[in-house]
């Protein structure tokens, strides 16, 4: 059967008066009315039927045939449209034509658009993957049957509804390599995912919607989060470095002042005032190292207050030092901290008195018990006093600030990473073959 036919042409004349017919096409409806006598052409009229069918098919397309659009500097005309399905999903393909550049395919699926080119050179097989110009494509869809369900317009071969090919797809972020074969031929198409701005500018279609959790991305849709992570991590690294430098610079402490006082376990609470502690900077933190090296089988509660002599404002902190030890089936054990470092924040400049209140307690049944009139309890007498020594330094290194700032800095990239993993998992769910794992997430971070 010859493949060429140019066909014949006829004029449509009004059956009533022979006058010329005006064609009005608005959306789906076509009306043919005589300009002279006003009579309408019956839609069953063969000429009217052809025109109506064409118009109806046209009106429902996102890109009406004959529309021209410029993609990457080349003007293309949409000349044909078809819809295909592989039994799982369906998608649409527009055939674009430019006589000096040949043909391209515009593929629309789930509101996302890709531009496809038929390859002239066969890709190189490498294990399960294929290579095109050194770029690696991994298997995604494995030999599905793609069938044409609807078509309209002009194609460089006479496609028919119901035509089938065996299709396999290989992907890398943003690109899909498709193999299609039937008994007579085998062809390769390389398609590139188009950014929403590109396709909207070229053909004025509805803007593709960005991915949200719950949606399924296309097999080759690039993760928008990967790009952000790649762009952000140098900034994050630089910021963490700067934070660390600042931590070191601002965290220095001045000359220490040492004070000490003894306290008797289970004896009365003691209070003593030391000083002066001078804060010379406009505002400064103070580090107090509270050590009780000889506390044993008990605890020492030390309350410290820095009282501004002029304003009588009090800056308080407290330390609870303790130490316990013993023997059990595993051997000897000990627990507790005999020293603590307190950091008091943001004292305004001035002269301060250090007020220390301390009280100690001893657990145990060694020694004699005596009735202690003062507290109304039996108390062990003769326990050695616990020495409380306090080292006071102006300035403090707040590592907690650093870690909090670190958390704030890393929060957005970690959020992007979580979204990237969600995106990739949703994307890879449709993959033929094994389930997705971390290596797939990393492949999804590849540059296009």
């Amino acid at each position, binding site marked *: 059967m010859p493949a060429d036919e140019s066909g014949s042409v006829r004029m449509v004349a009004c059956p009533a008066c022979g006058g010329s017919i005006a064609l009005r096409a608005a959306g789906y409806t076509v009306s043919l009315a005589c300009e002279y006598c006003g009579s309408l052409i019956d839609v069953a009229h063969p000429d009217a039927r052809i025109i109506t069918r064409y118009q109806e098919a046209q009106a429902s397309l996102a890109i009406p045939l004959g529309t021209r659009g410029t993609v990457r500097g080349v003007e293309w005309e949409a000349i044909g449209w078809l819809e295909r399905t592989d039994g799982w999903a369906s998608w649409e393909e527009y055939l674009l034509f430019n006589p000096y550049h040949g043909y391209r395919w515009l593929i629309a699926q789930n509101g996302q658009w890709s531009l496809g080119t038929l390859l002239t050179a066969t890709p190189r097989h490498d294990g399960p993957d294929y290579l095109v110009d050194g770029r690696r494509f991994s298997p995604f869809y494995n030999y599905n049957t793609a069938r044409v369900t609807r078509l309209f317009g002009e194609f460089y071969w006479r496609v028919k509804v119901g035509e089938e090919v065996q299709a396999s797809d290989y992907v890398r972020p943003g690109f899909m390599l498709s193999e299609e074969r039937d008994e007579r031929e085998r062809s390769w198409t390389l398609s590139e995912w188009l950014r929403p701005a590109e396709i909207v500018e070229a053909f004025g279609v509805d803007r593709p919607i960005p991915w949200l959790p719950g949606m399924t991305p296309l097999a080759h849709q690039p993760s928008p989060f990967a*790009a*952000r992570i790649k*762009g*952000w991590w140098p*900034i*994050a690294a*630089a*910021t963490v470095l*700067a*934070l660390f430098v*600042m*931590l070191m610079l*601002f*965290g220095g402490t001045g000359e220490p002042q040492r004070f000490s006082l003894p306290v008797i376990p289970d004896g009365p609470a003691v209070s003593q*005032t030391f*000083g*002066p502690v001078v804060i010379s*900077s406009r*505002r*400064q*933190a*103070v580090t107090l190292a509270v050590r009780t090296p000889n506390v044993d089988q008990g605890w020492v509660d030390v309350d*410290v*207050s*820095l*009282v501004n*002599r*002029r304003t*009588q*404002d*009090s*800056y*308080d*902190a*407290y330390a609870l030092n303790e130490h316990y030890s013993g023997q059990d089936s595993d051997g000897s054990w000990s627990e507790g901290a005999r020293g603590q470092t*307190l*950091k*008091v*924040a*943001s*004292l305004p400049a001035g002269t301060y*008195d250090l*007020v220390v209140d301390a009280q100690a307690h001893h657990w145990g049944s060694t020694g004699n018990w005596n009735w202690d009139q003062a507290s109304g309890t039996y108390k062990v007498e003769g326990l050695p006093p616990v020495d409380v020594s306090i080292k006071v330094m102006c*300035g*403090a290194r*707040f590592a*907690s*600030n*650093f870690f*909090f*700032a670190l958390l*704030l*800095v890393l929060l*957005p*990239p970690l959020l992007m990473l979580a979204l990237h993993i969600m995106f990739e998992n949703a994307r890879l769910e449709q993959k033929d073959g094994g389930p997705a794992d971390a290596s797939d997430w990393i492949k999804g971070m590849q540059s296009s």
Partner: protein
Amino acid sequence: MSRSIFLYALWCLGVLGLFLAASSQGYSPFADGARSAAVHGAYGPNHK
């Protein structure tokens, strides 16, 4: 420079600024001690 990179850089700058402000004031929300509301009474020589 894309918009998201610009915004993230702004965010990091903000965190750095906050850290700088806190460090220069010797401030930390995680400090062990701070100004207390209670008045302990007069301590030390406070008369000229």
